[in-house]
């Protein structure tokens, strides 16, 4: 028996991206929110293309435990519109059973027929011969491994056992919630569909994280994707293929600069040339640059920025090299020169606190900017 399905998670529908600076056209947040919502359609299409009749959403379908009615109802409506697909929604930590009780009540009471909320750990025959073993997250922090119950869930002989859970395989906080990486074996699962990580991660052949279908942070440096999983039969190793679904690319670009290097040119060389409109780019400049180099880098970034959805230049790690030519640009002598020399000395005085040095360096940079802009 061949069973295909789409494995996705962490749609985080309803996220508002308030931490994203709106560009002058004032629409980036809306575009990002719309991109997330559109993933329902994209997942449905992916399912159709793969011949899959089921989409398993392993948690955090909604960004908050109490999404607005519009978010909730429109999501259900979109799922309803993909009537040829069965949607299986597992409560995650963001939309856990307790905090998001109204959501699950709504889904349980008024959801389309093809939308199913998995509210308890009972095994469900989602299609003949295939049992879905869900591990819904009851509260935000459970303090235990919810997949442990899978070892005790019985299914009829000859049934494919597909686990669906939400959580990490690495316990960063010592909370006891870590999912053992071999849970598929201990629970006798043909596949364990996990959610929580927004990046793609294969734990084992039978234990996978698809990542979020639409990225929302500068962490994974890829577009969002889902997994198309095909299980050819009992005991067969699942065939997993990645399907890119993301509209926006969240990329982080490291830009190390060397002394004397043309910062603007270095930036130009590293920047993407295509699909800038759908790219959010964070540039982390590092290394050393002169005052002129700082200014040039800033100018170059400002020049490229409008083409991107968002371009964020971070120069915290870019040191400033001061030399006499910089000071000459300010003035050759006199009070201006004196002020510049003092600021430079303060910026380079290792005995001073870092903040004071940083302020002095920034003041010197500013003086440089004034001087290079003022007519002689």
């Amino acid at each position: 028996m061949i069973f295909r399905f789409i494995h996705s998670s962490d749609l985080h529908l309803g996220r508002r991206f308030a931490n994203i600076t709106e560009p002058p056209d004032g629409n980036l947040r809306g575009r990002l929110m719309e991109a997330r919502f559109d993933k329902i359609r994209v997942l449905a299409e992916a399912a159709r293309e793969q011949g899959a009749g089921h989409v398993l959403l392993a948690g955090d379908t909604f960004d908050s435990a109490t999404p607005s009615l519009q978010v909730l109802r429109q999501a259900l409506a979109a799922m309803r519109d993909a009537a040829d697909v069965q949607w299986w929604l597992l409560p995650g930590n963001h939309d856990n059973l307790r905090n998001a009780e109204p959501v699950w009540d709504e889904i349980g009471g008024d959801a389309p027929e093809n939308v199913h909320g998995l509210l308890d750990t009972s095994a469900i025959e989602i299609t003949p011969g295939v049992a879905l073993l869900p591990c819904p997250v009851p509260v935000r922090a459970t303090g235990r491994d919810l997949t442990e119950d899978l070892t005790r869930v019985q299914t009829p002989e000859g049934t494919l056992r597909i686990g669906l859970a939400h959580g990490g395989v690495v316990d960063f906080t010592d909370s006891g919630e870590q999912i053992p990486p071999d849970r598929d074996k201990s629970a006798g699962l043909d596949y364990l569909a996990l959610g929580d990580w927004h990046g793609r991660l294969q734990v084992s052949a039978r234990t996978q994280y698809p990542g979020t279908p639409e990225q929302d942070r500068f962490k994974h440096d890829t577009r969002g994707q889902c997994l198309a999983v095909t299980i050819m039969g009992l005991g067969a190793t699942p065939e997993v293929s990645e399907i890119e679904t993301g509209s926006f690319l969240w990329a982080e670009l490291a830009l190390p600069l060397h002394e004397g290097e043309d910062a603007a040119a270095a930036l130009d060389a590293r920047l993407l040339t295509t699909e800038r409109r759908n790219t959010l780019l964070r540039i982390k400049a590092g290394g050393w640059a002169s005052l002129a180099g700082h200014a040039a880098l800033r100018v170059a970034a400002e020049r490229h920025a409008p083409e991107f959805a968002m371009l964020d230049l971070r120069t915290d790690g870019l040191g400033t090299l001061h030399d006499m030519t910089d000071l000459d640009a300010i003035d050759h002598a006199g009070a201006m020169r004196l002020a510049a020399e003092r600021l430079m000395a303060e910026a380079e005085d290792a005995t001073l606190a870092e903040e004071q040095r940083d302020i002095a360096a920034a003041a010197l940079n500013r003086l440089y900017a004034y001087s290079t802009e003022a007519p002689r």
Partner: protein
Amino acid sequence: MKLRAITLKDVRRFTDPVRIDGIDNGVNVLSAPNEFGKSTVFDALRALFFVPHGSRGKEISQLRPHAGGAPEISVEIETADGTFLISKRWLGKPEVRVTRAGVMIAQADEAEGWIARLLGGGDGGPSGLLWVRQGLNSLAEGSNKEQQAALVARRDLLSSVTGEVEEMTGGRRMDAALARCREELGVYATGTGRPRAGGPWADAMQEVDGMVLEREAFARRVEKLQTALTERARLRRELADLEASEAVGERKARLEAAKAAHGAAQAYAEKVTLAMRTLQVATTTAERARNDLENLKTIKNDYASAMQNDEKAKAQLLEAQAVLAIAEQAFGAAVGEHDTAERGHQRAADLLQQVQARSKAIAANDRRRELEERLGQANAARQAVEAEVAVASVGPNETDMEHLRALAAALSTARALRDSTATRVMMRYLPGQEGSLRHPKGPLEHNTALPIHTDTGLHIDGLGELLVLPGEGPEGLSDVASVKTEVSTALSSLGVSSVDEAEVAHRKRKEAGDRLTQVRAELAALAPKGIEDLQRQLATLPAPAAGDGTDLPAEEEAAKNLDNAKALAAERAATRDAVRERRDDARMARVQAQVRHEAAAERLKSAGIALERLASKDEAELVRLADTAETEWTNADTALSQLRAAAPDISTTEATLKRVQSVSNAAHQRIDALRPAIAALNERITGNSGEAVEERLQETDEKLEVARTHCARVEREVKVLQRLQRALEAARSEARDRYFEPVAEELRPLLHLLWPDAELNWADDTLLPQSLIRNGQEEPVDILSGGTQEQIAFLVRLAFARLLAKGGRHAPVILDDALVFTDDGRIERMFDALHRQAEGQQIIVLSCRQRAFRDLGGKALKITAAVDQE
């Protein structure tokens, strides 16, 4: 350059040539009265050096004499290149020449150029600093052109010494950078470094604060929502637990069981009650049987006891009667004896009374006799009083006499007055003729004046009658008459005819009064309360007693007898009372014995009746009945004990039933309460969740993070601008100080001549002092006194001159009446400053204050007539 001589012709009042010769190095003084031409010399020099020869302007036309003419001015100067003569003429054949030792060096425009180069170029050159015209005593006076020229000169000077001020202080670039820095900073902060209201810094802080509040509000709502969710889940679980069929069934079963148990307990309790009644009956029966038996025994014993008691009481009664008889007899005897003593007492009292009556009668007779005697005397005194009263009321009293005497005195006075003023006749008889002159009252005495008050005839023996006619009457005559009339009236009223008679009558009256007083005193002594009182006292006395009472004992003896009798009576009375008491006790004892006897008889009677009543009862039968009753009681008690031992606790079953009932009721009530509570929570949750509060909280969190990041950036920007501003201002201030240091260094010792610790602050736009610091206080220059401003300006010019000289640009300092506001005390120090700075320089002082500047010293200049140098 140094001036050596000046020549003027056709310059104002100097139509003929005049010259100032011998201008030396150091201090030169041209001291002359007003309108002598000192300022003309100043203006002439300025014109020579700065006004082109072709000029026909005001500064030239004002140099012309009234009568007209072409002003000509020549100056001999000495420079490093030698001695030159500069000559210039305006208006009529204008020309300018520069010659050396008579040789033409330059003329016309070339000469003008030569002069300009000599001065260092510019409009005014050092003269703007060093040449002070009359009336311009501060540094910032003069026309705009002059001030601008002076500024240029100062800048040129300082720049030549220290460098261009712009180069040092940053000039316009510094100004622009500072202005921009301040402008940008001003957008964020106020002058005190606080966030500017409405600025981006304040806005960023407000944004953060607003976000924090908003976040807190959403967090509270989320918390409330979560609390409501938790509560609803709990309530739902509770409702489910309560409504579970298993729970309902269990409650019902428990209730039924409790009811059954309690019913059984109640039934059992009834059985126990019945057993208790049975026992109670058996107890009563047994008690009765025992009582009957006991009663029989008791009654028999009582009867025997009552008989004994009765006998005893009877014997006691007889004894009490015997004692009473004896006591009655004794009491009778005591009463008799007491009566006898009482009679004896009475007799003694009567006897004493008689004795006392006899004494009283004797006293009364004596008293009678005394009273009768006094009464007689008192009557006699009263008669005497009446007689004296009659006499003492006749005649004038004292008041009358005083009045009469006063009248008499007045009459005498009137007469004397009358006589003193009356006509008098005096007769001096010849011997043997005495008495031959007679007036109506008799012969005149020899040599005795006789007042004549009325027409009076005097008879003269042998001659006839001499009439004396006093006229209208002497003074006081009418007074005498009136007084006399009064006297007559008074005498008449008193019933006398003369004063003497009145005196006599008065004296008699008085004597009678004295006697009256005396007899009244005697009467009062005899009868203090009056004669009637004596009579009453006499009437109250008893009639004289008959007999002498010689058969009676003396009163003392009688009293003693009475006392003895009294004592005996008292003794007998005490004896009687004691015997009475004994008799009364005997009576009481007899009564009590009677009562006891009666009670014993009654008791015997009752015991006999009771004994008679029970006579029919058989004691053995009573014993048998008692035993039977006892057995039945024992059986009933055993049965009850057994029942009780096995009895269920009805209180417990009742309590259990109540509890179970209450649990069931509580469950129903709780179910009824949970449903609306859950409904209310549903509504609240639906409302809040529909508002997406968690999404909005998360959104607010993100916005808050952004706002904080932005605020931090703004604050950093503020710090950067503030740091930059401080750096620029500090650098510029240091540069400015360095720029002015040369002139400050020159000026310092000069200032200290006036103020030991003084310093000047300089404005870098005007390059002039803007404030004076002395005694630790900073004072703006423009508020200083005129004298102080003048002195500062003076010293600054001297400092500038020295700087120029050090720079190789020697220029004369020309001061036209430059110290007009300086007092005599400071002017000496100013003179010291002049001479101090004159080393290597040329200073020309023009002054009208000849006396004050006498102590200046230096070379004295004069304007003298000059021979035409042409």
